[in-house]
């Protein structure tokens, strides 16, 4: 595998998929705010949040580039733990959603709820007037969802080389795709398979966390980087076992409740 392809697979692709999920969630809120309170202030809110996120990535990402040749063992371990905490959390949530234990993220429902809440608030609907609520609601939505993007970009970028640039490119590409699709459709992007994408990212982050975390412990994986897909397959299979266990528990419950 060439270095460019490896960087794409390890940094840009997971950053892109994770970012699509988060930007879609932020887009729903911004769309609801814009459609009810006018677009001027919400768009400034989006811009403000993107600048804030850029500052966060530069502040934490620059040292990764400057000192990447002096990356310490402890640093590898910290990045491994960070990726695992993210990955296991996303994986668990996605599996519980597959099993119906946690409700699926429904963008249409969230959009309607936001619209109802915003319509209940007083507002000077003149398009050119500044709207503090519109600004801060959009700022908060993009910042809160974007923080997750920023953390994932930094964690994936911390693997060194051109990984940070690739991860940033993946997140920016996701932003462009979501905004373009949203601007064209002008409705919540509820067709995006958010849960499946969370599952994929959860598996990838968990795999990278195990791999790099162990390397931080000076473990030498047999076959080196070739172990990454092997670990990924193991994580996916274990997750599918988890889905089957929950499906069986649900089925047993249904059978018990139907039985006389």
């Amino acid at each position, binding site marked *: 595998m060439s270095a460019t392809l490896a960087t794409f697979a390890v940094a840009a692709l997971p950053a892109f998929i994770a970012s699509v999920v988060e930007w879609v969630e932020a887009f729903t809120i911004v769309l609801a705010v814009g459609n009810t309170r006018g677009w001027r202030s919400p768009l400034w809110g989006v811009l403000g949040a993107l600048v804030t996120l850029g500052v966060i990535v530069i502040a934490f990402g620059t040292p990764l580039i400057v000192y990447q040749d002096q990356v310490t063992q402890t640093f590898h*371990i910290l990045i*491994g*733990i*960070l990726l*695992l*905490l*993210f990955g*296991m*959390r996303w*994986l*668990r*949530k996605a*599996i*519980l959603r597959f*099993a119906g*234990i946690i409700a699926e993220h429904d963008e249409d429902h969230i959009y309607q709820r936001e619209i109802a809440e915003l319509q209940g608030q007083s507002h000077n609907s003149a398009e050119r007037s500044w709207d503090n609520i519109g600004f801060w609601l959009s700022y*908060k939505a993009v*910042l*809160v969802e974007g*923080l*997750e993007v920023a*953390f994932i970009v930094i964690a994936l970028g911390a693997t060194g080389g051109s990984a940070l640039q690739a991860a940033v490119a993946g997140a920016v590409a996701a932003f462009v795709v979501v905004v373009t699709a949203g601007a064209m459709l002008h409705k919540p992007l509820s067709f995006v398979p958010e849960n499946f994408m969370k599952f994929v990212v959860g598996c990838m982050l*968990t795999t990278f966390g*195990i*791999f790099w*975390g*162990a390397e931080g*412990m*000076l*473990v*030498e*994986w*047999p076959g080196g980087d070739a172990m990454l897909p092997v*670990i990924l397959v*193991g*994580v996916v299979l*274990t*997750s599918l*076992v*988890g889905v089957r*266990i*929950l499906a069986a*528990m*649900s089925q*047993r*419950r249904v059978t*018990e*409740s139907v039985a006389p």
Partner: protein
Amino acid sequence: MRDAWEQVYGLLVEDGQIAIGTLAAFVAAAAVAALGSELQNDMLRNSAGLLLFVLLMALLLVNLYSAGRKAYPPTTPATPSAAGSSVPKK
């Protein structure tokens, strides 16, 4: 800012069992790797990677199983006396 901080905290710790279990698995694997290095036993040190994988996957399955038990608690079969009487059992 409070929302942002809660989001940052939530990013890492949504389920306590998963978060603490992940850290514990890491510590256990690191201890094995350190022991392997101390004893200059490469096989023992390298087994820490596999151990980390196994511990984390076991943690995931246990966590999902306990979530399933909470969502689908096992129903106890209704006995005639329990079904027909409101007097609690002693």
